[in-house]
């Protein structure tokens, strides 16, 4: 459906994306994930046709689209700040693209009403000025405006970043449901790992303009291909050489002593995990505890490492700082780079 082939994007002397090759399938919810300045938005804007690559080609539906004007790519886009036209009403915003195409009034009204219903905008809201809407409603207007022209690809540039945490979670689900309903190929840009993991069919993790790994959320999280992906996605414990040495001595012979070792917080247990005979016990001292409601995070000092462990609420009696603790680690869950 979409293919970046050896795409290079530069701004003067500065190369933002050195060599991007990426394929996105038809109907897929594909996320470009990475920290600020990693090139994910640049890649999206290049796909939208706002930036012309200095080298390489972009294919849409098997046809070269590299130099095609954005309005001819059949892409709809939702901008980070929604980019709603402040001098127009909600209805006029949604109908803007149809007006440009000189669509008949009756048909325009029909299409606007149809898409408004899909994104749950009321008739009353349609008559309002965009500045009178809440952030969540504005976001729906932006989606409706992008979808009313029935594009083949929907581009979303951090559309949830301006919303509060609760609304973000709610809209995440709605957005995903809408995408599934319409079956539209969606390219989503975010720096929020949780957003990426919960919404995406596949994720490309960007770092300094380079794709570090492409994979399903599970692959990205559990089998992080690079040290960057491993540390960027989810929380990690970095294990000291002494801890790795202890684990090797107690049965973790598969661990390479010279490599850097990481372990996810939820893979550390403070009680012997039932049925897992591979788990190795290490002794330590509780250095601190932070309470998160559904779980607590304990920091345990052990063999030169401060190892954090997630303990679900009700998962044993609380340990006080300074008290002795036992850590149980399965060497096979350690990621080494």
């Amino acid at each position, binding site marked *: 459906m979409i293919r970046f082939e050896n795409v290079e994007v530069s701004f003067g002397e500065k190369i933002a994306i050195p060599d991007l090759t990426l394929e996105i399938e038809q109907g897929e919810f594909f996320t470009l994930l990475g920290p600020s300045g990693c090139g994910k938005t640049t890649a999206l804007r290049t796909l939208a*046709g*706002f930036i012309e690559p200095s080298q390489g080609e972009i294919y849409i539906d098997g046809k070269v689209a590299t130099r095609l004007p954005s309005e001819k790519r059949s892409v709809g886009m939702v901008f980070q700040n929604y*980019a709603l036209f402040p001098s127009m009403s909600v209805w006029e915003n949604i109908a*803007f*693209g149809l007006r*440009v*195409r000189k669509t008949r009034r009756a048909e325009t009204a029909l299409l606007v009403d149809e898409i408004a219903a899909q994104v749950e905008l009321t008739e009353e809201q349609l008559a309002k000025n965009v500045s009178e809407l809440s952030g969540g409603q504005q976001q729906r207007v932006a989606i409706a405006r992008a979808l009313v*022209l029935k594009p083949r690809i929907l581009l979303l540039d951090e559309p949830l970043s301006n919303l509060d945490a609760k609304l973000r979670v709610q809209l995440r689900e709605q957005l995903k449901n809408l995408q599934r309903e319409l079956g539209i190929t969606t390219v989503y840009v975010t720096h929020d790992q949780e957003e990426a993991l919960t919404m995406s069919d596949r994720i490309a993790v960007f770092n300094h303009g380079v794709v570090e790994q492409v994979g399903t959320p599970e692959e990205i999280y559990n089998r992080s291909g690079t040290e960057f992906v491993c540390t960027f996605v989810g929380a990690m414990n970095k294990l000291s050489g002494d801890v790795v040495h202890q684990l090797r001595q107690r049965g973790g012979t598969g661990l390479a002593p010279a490599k850097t070792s990481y372990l996810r917080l939820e893979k550390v247990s403070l009680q012997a995990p039932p049925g897992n005979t591979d788990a190795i016990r290490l002794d330590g001292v509780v250095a601190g505890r932070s309470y998160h409601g559904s779980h607590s995070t304990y920091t345990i000092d052990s063999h030169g490492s401060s190892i954090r462990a997630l303990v679900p609420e009700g998962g044993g009696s609380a340990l006080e700082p300074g008290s002795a603790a036992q850590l149980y680690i399965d060497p096979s869950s350690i990621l080494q780079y």
Partner: protein
Amino acid sequence: MRTSSWASMFRSPFVVIITLVTLWFVATFLVFPNANLLIRTFFPEGQFSFRAVEKLVSSERAMNSLWHSFALAATLAVTVNVVGIFIVLVTDYFKIRGARMLWLGYATTLIYGGIVLAAGYNFIYGRYGFVTNAVRNWFPEIDPNWFSGYFAVVVVMTLATTTNHMLFLGSSLAKIDYQTIEAARNMGASTMGILWRIVLPALRPMIFAVTVLTFLTGLGALTAPLVLGGTDFQTIAPMILTFSKSTGSRDLAALLAVILGLATIVLLAMMNRVEKSGVYFSVAKVATPLQKQRIPNPVANAAVHVAAYALFVVYATPVLLIVLFSFVHSSAIVTGSISWDSFTLDNYATVFGTPAVLRPFVVSVVYSALASVIVVGGMLFVSRLLQKHRNPLTATLEYLLHIPWILPTILIALALVMTFDRPNPMVGGQVLTGTTSLLLIAYVIVKIPFTLRLLKAAFASVPESLEDAARILGAGSMFTLRTVLVPLVLPTAAAITALNFNSLLDDYDAAVFLYHPLYQPLGVAIKASTEGENNLDSMSITFVYTVLLMVIMGFTMYLVYGRGGSSTKRHTRRARTVAAK
């Protein structure tokens, strides 16, 4: 990428036309006249010559005018700062009873200035002024010319120029993070200590900027020295006017104008340098709004209140008297004896009932309205062109369009007169000097930089994503400009039009060089009314003109600053800041 290349710039025929028209206008009216002025000053017969310099050095009047101008500018730099900072502090910083009323009194100079203000003071305190005559009825030995020369010019210009402080210093003060004041107080600093160590240092860049503006105003002062300076205190600008009237001394006028221009360029360069050194209103991500400070010492508090109200009287009295005298016959003002019977509506009836008397007013309104609309309409396209297409050509055009900002109006006017006094191929072989169009052109020219800068800022403040959104939805550049961008910059454009209209309405500096004898503008008519005993009858008419001007300007200022939504306020706030430059 948004920065368009040459190819994309010349792809649209509309952009090509705008570019060509702008190039023609810049070359014909901004570059050529000023270059011509320099050439005719230093290359009078095709060869470089210091003749103008020699004439200047040997002319005592000319040299005196130079000295007077710099003395006036230096004096104003001190007096205006003292009065201006005091005004800002009592209206915006300290808790003073009736601060709102005080502000309105001090702000009266926003609605009348230039020739109107100088004439007003002359008619009240001058040789034939009401106050002078009233006092002389009791004390005949008092010199009737007491309000004349250096002293009178400094007083009038000091009061007139504090508007810069009220607009720009006031807005800078509002940007100070109140938490810095609270922090200082928490550490034991006194009210005066906080003012001296925290507030004033934060305002230093803006104080420097308004000082430079004041210095420049003093250096190029025309109307106040002309009306109130008398024979002994004439400055550069009135001398340029005098010398330009005779072809034999036009080179001297041109040289004085060049000196004025150079001084302006040097001072603006200094200001830019200081501006670039950084402003430090607040480093906080969310600044706390300033709260007014109480003066804890009761004696100091009382003294500040007394001084603030005394200054209020000084500012408000001329305005009240002008309004009052607009209903009084000139004879009663001249004799200094006014009774109930003196009040009449005759002056207003004369102005509105006599076409010849109303004519200067109409001429000025038409000129100002036309120039304001033309410059805003034109710059709407030019600023968009400069903002969207960034390349060496547009960068050069932008610099050249700022020429009127660095050259005094009288230099521009003189250059236009000297350039278009013969058939010129760049304007189709026409002679423009002496026609009605040259003043209109001059008005458009002097308003270009202010208009361009604000409109460009307005376009720049429109998020790029709006254009991207329109583009991805299939809208072309013109459609996007018409339906998305213009509606967004329209409030700013309207505010600029109103401000331009106001500032041109009572213009004298350009008009005196360029007006058509049959279409005398208001500024020239008002100046004529101040010239000696023979014109005293027109004094009352001038008061009526002044009242009408104050009503129009007051209404315009209200429309721009006093009402409307937040967007208008935001845009005009930017207008205030940019206007300071």
